[in-house]
Every structure is written in C-alpha cells, then in structure tokens.
C-alpha cells in the first residue's frame, strides 16, 4: 500500500504538471482539491483517465471521483480494492 501511495503521488505530480511540488510534500491525507493541492475539474478528468489506463478502473459515474479523489490515502484504498491490472 505504501508503495502504491508513493506511485500515485509521483503520477499526480507528473501528469498534472505540478512543477513546484515534490512527492515528499504531499501527505497521505492532504486534500487533493480545494485548499489542499488545489486541483480543479480538468485535473479530475485527468485522474479518471489515469485510473482507467493504469489500474483498469472505469468510473461509470464521474461524480464518484469526488469521493475517490479526496486524498492519496482514499485513492490508494479504492485502487487496492478495485484494480483489474
């Protein structure tokens, strides 16, 4: 699980071009949207594609993302329970 969380942090930084953020600066429970990393709706779409491409998880309802992308910890838990690859 710890490995998955580190992997997710690195992917979030790379795919969302968070140039000034390092893996160490993202705590497992930091909010990804709003006051935390400050991600927005376009980032949410990027994360939905990432779940599908890298972990074989296709969200049928994009609104599910609101809960799943709450933090790296929540994302990792969801991926661990639902991944198909």
């Amino acid at each position, binding site marked *: 699980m710890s490995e998955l969380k580190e992997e997710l942090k690195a992917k979030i930084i790379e795919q*969302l*071009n968070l*140039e000034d953020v390092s893996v160490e600066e993202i705590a497992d429970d930091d909010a990804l949207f709003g006051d935390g990393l400050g991600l927005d709706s*376009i980032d949410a*779409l*990027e994360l939905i*594609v990432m779940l599908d*491409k890298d972990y074989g998880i296709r969200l049928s309802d994009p609104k599910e993302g609101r809960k799943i992308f709450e933090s790296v910890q929540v994302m990792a838990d969801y991926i661990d329970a639902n991944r198909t690859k």
Partner: protein
Amino acid sequence: MKKVYINSIASISPQKTFENASFLDDIIEYNETVISAFDPNYKEHIPPAAARRMAKGIKMGVVASKLAMKEAGIGTVDAIITGTGMGCMIDSEKFVSAIIDNNEQYLTPTSFIQSTHNTVAGQIALGMECKAYNFTYVHAAISFESALLDAKMQLENDEANNILVGGVEELGAHTTDVHRVINHIKPEAVTISEVLNSNTEGAVFSEGANFFVVSNDRKESSYAELLAVETYNTLEKDKVSEAIKSVLKENNLKPEDLDVVVLGNNGDVEFDGYYNQLSKNIFKNTKQVYYKHLVGENNTVSAFGVWLASKIIKTQQIPAMVNLNDIEATEPNIILCYNQYRGENHSLVLLKKC
C-alpha cells in the same frame, strides 16, 4: 479615417529581446539548424497554477502580451488579435501521439484543450479578464499581418481604440523532424554571420512571440504610425517590385522616399532571390536591414521585423548586426518591411515616424 499608431512592443525571441531597454546590443551567437527562444523567467509573470498547463508557446504569448500591455500603460484592450501559422504544436503533438500510442483510448483533456490555435489569445484574455473581440488568424507566413490588418481597420474606423496584436510560434519536436525531412530546415548547422552565404536550401527554424499594442490614440511614447499592411497569398517573383511601388504610391511615396527597408532573407538559396532582386534594383540606394540570421525563421517571425522597424524609428538607431548593406540612414523615419516564405504569402508593412 483615424490614424493608427504602434504604442508598445514586446518580443520574446532567440535573442535577449524581452528586456526592451536594450536593443540587440548583446547578441547570442548560434551555430544551429533550429534555435529556441531565449526565455524570460516565466514564473515572474504567470501564477504557477495557471502556468502548469501552458506549453512554451502559450507562456511566450502570455508574457509578451503582458510586457506590451505594461509598456502601453493600459489594463485592458478593445480587442485581442493573434496570428499563428502552426499554433500550439507541443500539445498538438502530445495529443495526436496519445491517440496513436493508446489506440484511441485514454485521451486526457489538457493537451486537447491547449492544442488549438486560438489557445494563446484565449489565455491572454482569461489573464486580463477581457471579454472583448478575440480572434486568431491562421494563414501561414501572413498570419501576423492578417491580425495586424484586422486591427488596423478596426482602429481606422474607430470601432476600437486600443488593440493587442501579436504573432506566436513554438517549436514541436515531431513537426521539426518533418520539416527537416522535406529540406525546409538547413542540412547543416550555420552561424548567424554565415546564414546568408550558406548556399544551401532551407532555413534555420525558430520560435518566438512578438506583441504590440496598436491604437488610434497617439502618445508621446508611440513608436510609429502604421501606414499600410498588405498581404499576398501568391505573387510572382517579377511582380514583387510592382506590388511594392503600388503600396508606396497609395501612400504618396516612392521607393527612394524609404529610409530603411527590412528584408526577410533567411539564407534559403531557393528563395532569397525574392529579396536579392529588390536589393539590387529598387532598393539599391536604400538602407537595407535583415533579422532572420539572429532569430531564425517561423511563420510569424515577420512580426519581429515589425518590432525591429518600430524600434529603429523610435530610437533612431540601427544595430550593426542587422546591416545588410553599408548605406547610411541618418534619420530612419519611413520603413518598409517585406517578407515572404518559400515564394508564397508575401507581406508589406509600412511604418512612419509619428
């Protein structure tokens, strides 16, 4: 009709031009076939949250426009008009590559959103919260001049008072490779002093952004009056002189009235003849300057020619590095810029001291 003035200029190019206080007095010597823009510190001008999705072309356009707006001393404009021949190449290549690599699956929105030709004008408008006329001309080597002509007509008819106009191009790796394959890029690296004597096909490719605030309100700080903008998609080589004389005549001028002519020679042995015939004939007694040896070739680099002409008129100085002949121009007040690319898309921009 109202007169039109260039009230501010800003350039991001392969030379150190973004600091407008200097004027080509610290030249970067290249020995390349492709040259990138010399970057300002984009973080000083664009908030990190906005910059993270911007490819280089967007950053160059946004920062050049901010510099132009700052010099003009205005917070907003009545129109934002850009020209770009190739648009946002980096994100276009990224998006198309993703389609191919992922078998048309897993397409993400960012590179698609940022890949359109009008992204730069859109981002500039978002940045200054400007909901006015926003237009992007995509017309190869006359993209910038098309934008400038639109602005000029709006200002002459008093439909607008201040308009931000610019040209922007960015280098994309794949597109550059394609241009190399079809010999539009020089086969061997060439120094800036040897570009015109390279005797090879193709040009040194480049990128950059040049922006201007044009207005029908003349200021003490104005650079020049914009007398004429003419574009020609096709123009036979032996008709160029006639076209120039015709434009000059419409402005009650003759070739000998020009103090300086800014030519777009890029060292392509196939097409520099368009300029050389002028140098040897109608402009043989006129001061000639050129600039593509310093900043390379791209679809809107002719905007750099207008930047150069504006700067010459305002400073009344001609940097030695742009001299194409030895004729002195003691008072450079009337300047004509002529450009073409590969024998097509010719443009004439006529400026006068104001």
